């Protein structure tokens, strides 16, 4: 399931390529962008199917409702811009014109999290998953690497209903083998077995957490790593409960605010079924700032080394 050789690939390219592949099979697929098609990689779809691509210009709210109108007529719109503008700016449009009528619109937002980097807080969506998760009928997916993005985009095109997919700006180590890995929305992916602590993560944090688990192992701590790409509906919660029964302590790691995202989803499912100590690691109810990607991850405690230190300290409190 896991990739044996080191390969660094762009998840955004995976999106652009997947969309072109799917567009050839399903003529109902259309794409919309708001002047960021080179960044989001919908430019590939534009080039392949110019009559099925619509650039709204820098008018995201208009774009979301235009997608709603296209979906009303049976099209399958993939709508893309940065996560900040896709969600915060268009929350009313997504809620009232896409999710309330339960339309078949797929919002694929790139540049989520602090790793947007130098552009700073105005462009770093740290609350997007929280917004999207709270809207009824919205499905929320945060894939981890190039190969998973490809499968997730295909999955989204095949299910009916609104979906929010968050893709990182960062080029990432490819974790999953393109042939052996099979995206299973209702399950957590067990990356490694462990007995001392369960670490739940997704998206671009998965690489850091895998490396962190190795560092913890060197310190004599056995970590079980679960990857839960689908945060809503959080059907993977059952696997999190099973793991927590074994380890008795859970840590969540996300490139997002600790309010309303993966950490909250895990706490919700555990508090109701198996009250467990949970440490939520993410950005602590704050705005981001400018900086290089690695510098920002380090500042917010999201690198493998910082995660290892934080988790080690937390386990000592047990």
């Amino acid at each position: 399931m896991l990739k044996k050789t080191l390969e660094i690939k762009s998840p955004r390219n995976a999106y652009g390529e997947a969309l072109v592949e799917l567009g050839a099979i399903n003529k109902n697929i259309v794409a919309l962008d708001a002047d960021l098609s080179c960044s989001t990689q919908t430019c590939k779809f534009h080039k392949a199917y110019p009559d099925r691509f619509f650039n709204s210009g820098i008018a995201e709210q208009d774009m979301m409702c235009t997608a709603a109108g296209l979906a009303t007529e049976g099209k399958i719109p993939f709508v893309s811009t940065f996560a900040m503008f896709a969600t915060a700016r268009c929350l009313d449009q997504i809620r009232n014109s896409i999710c309330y009528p339960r339309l078949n619109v797929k919002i694929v937002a790139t540049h989520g999290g602090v790793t947007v980097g130098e552009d700073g807080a105005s462009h770093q969506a740290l609350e997007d998953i929280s917004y999207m998760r709270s809207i009824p009928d919205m499905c929320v997916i945060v894939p981890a690497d190039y190969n998973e993005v490809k499968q997730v985009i295909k999955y989204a095109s095949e299910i009916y209903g609104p979906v929010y997919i968050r893709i990182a700006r960062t080029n990432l180590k490819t974790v999953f083998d393109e042939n052996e890995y099979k995206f299973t929305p209702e399950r957590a992916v067990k990356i490694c077995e462990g007995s001392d602590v369960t670490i739940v993560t997704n998206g671009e944090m998965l690489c850091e957490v895998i490396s962190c688990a190795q560092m913890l192992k060197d310190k004599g701590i056995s970590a079980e790593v679960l990857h839960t790409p689908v945060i809503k509906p959080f059907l993977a919660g059952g696997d999190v409960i099973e793991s927590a029964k074994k380890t008795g302590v859970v840590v969540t790691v996300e490139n997002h605010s600790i309010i309303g995202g993966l950490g909250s989803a895990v706490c919700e499912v555990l508090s109701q079924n198996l009250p467990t100590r949970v440490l939520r690691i993410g950005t602590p109810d704050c705005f981001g700032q400018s900086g290089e990607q690695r510098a920002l991850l380090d500042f917010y405690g999201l690198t493998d080394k910082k995660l290892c230190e934080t988790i080690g300290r937390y386990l000592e409190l047990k």
Partner: protein
Amino acid sequence: MQLEKFNSSVRCNILKMIHAARSGHPGGSLSCVEILSVLYNKIMFVPKEWKNSPEFEKRDRFILSKGHASAALYAVLAQKGFFPVDELLSFRKLGSRLQGHPSTRSALEGIEVSTGSLGQGLSIAVGVALALKLNNSNSKVYALLGDGEMQEGSVWEALMSASHKKLNNLIIVIDKNKLQIDGNTDDVKSLEPLDKKLEAFGWDVVEVDGHNENELENAFIEAKKSTKPFAVIANTIKGKGVSFMENNAGWHGKAPNDDELKLALEELNA
């Protein structure tokens, strides 16, 4: 065909519905009765059998962007036979298909999209119009907006999109009743000169008396031939047909009591 009887009956039903619900929006519903009436009786092809009709895909699409005028749309649809007139009195009540603002969730015959949050219907109409073009459909898309609603910035984004994409299958009507909740539109935030603004945004524009059936009908006939997206500015009277509601912003979102209903129905039936 003269629509006076149809329109009068629609107005009576609007008031009965809002009275029964003890809530709703009489002012902006009464102002758009002739607009809806002309569209549904003379201009649009929309089979009342709705999804059961073999002609369903060929229908013209109607989007009530000013969703608070739901009572008017429901009353017109019921009178046209889309669903039983009896159902009108369930308006705004728990479990009703006639939600406070139109919703596709309740699968009410004749409702194309969910609206209510202002400023979104025109962008939806742009999406529908694009899809119809992709499908080589000859159907037209009609959207009804309020003049107050034109203060929403996203409406102007959509106006730009429609002309940029050359959507000559898109026709909007602006129900210009000149009032909004806080008073005169000109005082709250003026839209003038609205016709020139729309023209500058690449639209064909005509201005009509929104209570004159012939003027409305002629405008729509012209609109269908246009090579550009087309806007009909319909000058209307908020609360039209009920003397004490006319031109009174206080009747934007207030239900008549028993005495007021009686008085209003007497006027309308006179």
